[in-house]
């Protein structure tokens, strides 16, 4: 097989490198904290290198989604094989990894943000061993979600990242960390249960021929679930546009919506962000939120194309609510982190708006926005982290005039803020533009009302900028030092990506586009019951 290193596929490497790192971290004596940091850094840097190798070898123009031949770097073999377990029958779970144009941006994003997160964790000073071990476990969980093609495996990774996140917030967080951690955990678990139920319902509805024996058997293979002909005629989820398919879609939707988060399932987010340590906020906003929208595109849309065609309009309206409601809530905040948290809700609304449009530009814009928002919001949380480390407060009204005190920091911050505002030349502009163009074609009025968001975003972002960076510097902050080298190592790569993708978005759009076109095509054809496209 191609794309192997030491006989192991690239995707396995990129997913399990952090686990290797974790093992090493656990072996290091407790006192040697710097070795732990360097191990974690090494693991994420290697992961980033593998991501770069994958990126270089990735061939644009292939399809993916439901087409096994459209996936790249595929690894597939039997993982669990239990012949005849009670009424489950023959249970077989594949270790099935592969990426297409939908997952490639997410893989790159995860690798990049994980790397940046380790640097931002450098001054964690409480039980470092546990922290870095859990951090690396989390990393594996996230990466796994983006490369898994078997739904069981997908679910395992999905749950895998829940536990470390709980501890990372609950142990290393701020004053109300336990409340926030439990809220996060229960909320997400509630969503997971719904996903689990739908997964089981799908499992019992779909049958394929076992390639080994030729007998019919149930499967967790997501690609098989996308083909309507694989559904047993009398099963719960068979057919097109049937009642239970809509129920299953909505259950799955809620499961993913909690992660995005979509109004009204969003209130865990501000609490989690405020309490989480900087690096975890960065991971949370940079990668975790994208798992929700990724779930829509990877699981919900192609498996239930009939349902998404029916619910596209409500989804767009939810996108509108996220955009405007999130922006207005952000405007009222006085805690810097909470403000960024609400701005995340607002910006994720743009993703919803774009993907709900179900046309080339909308979906491409939505996926690109997932990537761009991941980068920009990671920058914003790092920026908050920088002043929180120095001033030990995040109150927006307690600052002012930092521009003169910390000029380099202010320069980087300006780029991040303007990217969040959607300034042309920076990355978020083009993804928002494409999302809005797509949405405008599909639902004109929703798109028009949503674009109020571009005014509101400018409003609260510039107001924040003014309150923190402009004006007179209060006496007590006269000693704050400017960003140091370590912080620059975290911020500068992200800033370069923001500017690069702002001018040359095709770098990211080219690998994505044929997969997304295929997805759009597939949803429209299968969803209306026309034919199964290959």
């Amino acid at each position, binding site marked *: 097989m191609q794309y192997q290193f030491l006989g192991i596929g690239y995707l396995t490497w990129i997913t399990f490198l952090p686990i290797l790192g974790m093992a090493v971290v656990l072996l290091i004596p407790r006192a040697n904290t710097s070795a732990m940091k360097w191990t974690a850094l090494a693991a994420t840097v290697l992961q980033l290198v593998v991501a770069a190798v994958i990126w270089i070898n990735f061939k644009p123009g292939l399809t993916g989604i439901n087409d096994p031949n459209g996936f790249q770097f595929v690894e597939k073999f039997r993982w669990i094989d239990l012949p005849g377990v009670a009424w489950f029958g023959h249970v077989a779970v594949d270790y099935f990894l592969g990426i297409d144009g939908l997952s490639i941006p997410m893989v790159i994003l995860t690798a990049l943000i994980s790397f940046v997160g380790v640097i931002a964790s450098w001054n964690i000073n409480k039980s470092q061993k546990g922290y870095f071990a859990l951090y690396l476990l989390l990393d594996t969980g996230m990466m796994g979600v983006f490369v898994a093609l078997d739904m069981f495996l997908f679910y395992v990774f999905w749950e895998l990242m829940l536990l470390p996140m709980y501890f990372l917030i609950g142990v290393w967080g701020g004053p109300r960390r336990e409340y926030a951690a439990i*809220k996060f955990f*229960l*909320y997400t678990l509630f969503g997971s249960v719904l996903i689990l139920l739908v997964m089981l319902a799908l499992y019992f509805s779909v049958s394929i021929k076992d390639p080994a024996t030729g007998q019919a058997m149930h499967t967790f293979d997501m690609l098989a679930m996308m083909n309507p002909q694989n559904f047993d005629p009398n099963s719960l989820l068979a057919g097109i546009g049937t009642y239970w398919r809509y129920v299953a879609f909505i259950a799955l939707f809620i499961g993913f919506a909690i992660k995005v988060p979509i*109004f*009204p399932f*969003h*209130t*865990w987010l501000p609490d989690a962000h405020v309490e989480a340590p900087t690096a975890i906020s960065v991971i949370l906003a940079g990668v975790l939120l994208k798992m929700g929208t990724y779930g829509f595109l990877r699981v919900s849309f192609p498996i239930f194309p009939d349902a998404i065609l029916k619910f596209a309009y409500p989804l767009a309206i939810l996108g509108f609510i996220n955009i405007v*409601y999130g922006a*207005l*809530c952000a*405007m*009222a*905040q006085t805690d810097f982190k909470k403000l960024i948290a609400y701005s995340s809700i607002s910006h994720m609304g743009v993703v919803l708006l774009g993907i709900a449009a179900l046309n*080339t*530009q909308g979906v*491409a814009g939505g996926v690109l926005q997932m990537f761009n928002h991941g980068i920009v919001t990671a920058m914003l949380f790092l920026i908050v982290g920088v002043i929180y480390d120095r001033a030990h407060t995040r109150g927006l009204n307690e600052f002012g*005039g930092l*521009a*003169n005190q910390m000029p380099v920091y202010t*320069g980087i911050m300006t780029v991040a803020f*303007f990217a969040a505002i959607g*300034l*042309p*030349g920076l990355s978020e*502009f083009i993804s928002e*533009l494409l999302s*809005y*163009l797509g949405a*405008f*074609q599909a639902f004109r009025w929703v*798109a*028009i009302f949503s*674009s*109020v968001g*571009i*005014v*509101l975003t*400018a*409003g609260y972002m*510039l*107001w924040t900028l*003014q309150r923190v*960076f*402009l*004006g*007179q510097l209060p006496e007590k902050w006269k000693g704050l030092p400017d960003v140091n080298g370590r912080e620059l190592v975290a911020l500068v790569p992200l800033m370069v990506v923001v500017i690069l993708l702002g001018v040359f*978005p*095709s770098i990211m*759009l080219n690998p994505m*586009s*044929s997969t*997304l*076109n*295929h997805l*759009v*095509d597939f949803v429209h054809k299968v969803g209306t019951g026309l034919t199964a496209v290959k």
Partner: protein
Amino acid sequence: MAPIETTLIQLALTVLLLPLAGFVLLIFFGKRIRRQDLIETGLLFVALAISIYIMVQKVFFISAPQIDFTFRWLDLGGMIGRPGFTIDLGIAIDNIAAIMLVVVTLISALVHTFSLGYMQGDVRYSRYYAYLGLFSFSMLGIVLSNNLLLMYVFWELVGISSYLLIGHWYEKKSASDAGKKAFIVNRIGDFGFFIGIMIVFTQLHTFLFSGIFSGIAQGQLSGPLLTAAGILIFCGAVGKSAQFPLHVWLPDAMEGPTPVSALIHAATMVAAGVYLIARVFPMLTAEALTLIAYTGAITAFISATIAVTQNDIKKVLAYSTISQLGYMVMGLGVDAYSAGFFHLVTHAAFKAGLFLASGSVIYAMHHEQDMRQMGGLRKKMPITYWTFVIFSLSISGIPLTSGFLSKDSILAGALAYGLLSGNYLIPIIGYAVVFLTAMYMFRLIIMTFHGEPRDVHKFEHAKESPKVMTVPLIVLAMLSFFVFYSFNPLNPDKGWLLESVKKPESVVPSYQKYSWDFLHVQLVEKGAEQPGVTGGGDKTINTNPYEMELERIHYTGLELSLFLASLGILTAFLIYHWKKIDAEKLKQRVKPLYNFLYNKWYFDELYGATAVAGTLFLSKTFAWFDGNVIDGAVNGAASLTRVWSSFSGKFDHYIVDGLVNFSAWFTGLLGRGTRRVQTGRVQTYIIFALIGVIVIFYVFKQF
């Protein structure tokens, strides 16, 4: 493409990128390079030289209407059987772009020069020049763009450079407030612009102007949607060119350094709105144009009335800028396309001059801007004074100046339009503003330069500005004379500028055009009889009722505007110089009106009380709702679960576990009862066995 055209495109790209190179250089290496200011200024002069070459080539030697360079920026592919999604971008040089190139680089280069003196010793000197570079780049981008998307991109970028420069002295709250206000108010306009672009793109699948126009000509976008698209795109211009009702940001923007006000907030960026209208002119329907004409006229009037009452020298000029922009917008709206563009060009020179001259005054007065503290500066600052007078004559529309030519063309257009369409209000406002303009300009001159000094201390320290500041003034003053635009001081029609800027053919369906635009008239001009050929020398002129009306009213309009301008100047002298009319008494007599004007028609208060307060209220309400209702529901669900769990805990303890314990107890009870049966004596057991046998016997007997 002919070789010369390729060269011109390359040169245009060079002009575009030079200021950007300066920006990057100064931002990253500003501290390490000495005399960064000279680098940036030098780059601009190089750009100016190239621009002049491009303009001369394009306007005088190349007959093709437009040189175009387009490339594919994005290709998302598409689905089988459907058109793919692509975005093409590019630049184009036509006559108006070529002329604008020179205008922008010229004013920019002069402002750079002027700033060498004015900004000397500033806290963020190199940052200042960096931002000027960013601005020049973005503005040139607007000029060269051949499509709506790139236009929007650079549109936002000039907005951001304007934001950064208004807030240059961001330690002052008022400065950072003004920058923020400018950006947000512009965003409101851009909101409309953005929707307009989306309409155009979803209907025509291209951002290129050429593609848009040909699509509309083929009828792919027409009717109310076309009108809406035009009006929405115009919204962008309303924001950027500070038109009513979004004009409120421009006066506040005067918080920026004065050379910035000259470059961005007077000559170039604010004119970008007008340029945008000129660019999309062919797709504007009669309804859209009428709205544009009214917007311009109302803006011109409101701001002129405010300008009469203001005391801050820069505020007066800011309102005068808004008013003149209103003229340009009105000019385009009344179909006087060339006149509107012409005024943009002449205004750029004299308004930049006015701002720079006021900068020279402010510099001399140690950053005093209140005209009530000035006076008598004429003797101390002769160059500043005389250039100021020339600029003022030009803006007032006195013959021999450039302003006379362009303004008069607009007014003639407005008059013809009013007579033909019945919208008499527009020419009436247009002429009323002539009077107001002349009056507030000369009020400014008299208060600043004439009479006795009011602040003696500052007056004594005042002196003429250094050469780097006065030379740009002299250059701009020369450019305020007619001769650079037309050799005929009374009629610009045959001048090179109007000869090269012709109204483009409208592409909208004819029922959506102005009536005269599709009612073409052919006039036959009798030529001299030639032997043997009848009518051999006849010339056929294609014209329309609008042109004929223009021809007819030309001199009437001219005389009227001249009369009103002189009247305005006279009034200013009567009140402020000769003091024949007491200004204070006049103020008292019309106190409510005066207060209304002095407070700028209370627009800021109105917006503060409605839009701003409303948004903040909404945001507070939503945040409360989020924290209490939605999160309350989540926490409520949690506490409900806790109550339920404590209940079920009790249930478990008392009922379920109680049952278990009860059954244990009951078993014990039974055990304790039956224990007595186990006596250990054989006789008792035999009796029990016997009884058992008898019972079984009877039971089985039943079957």
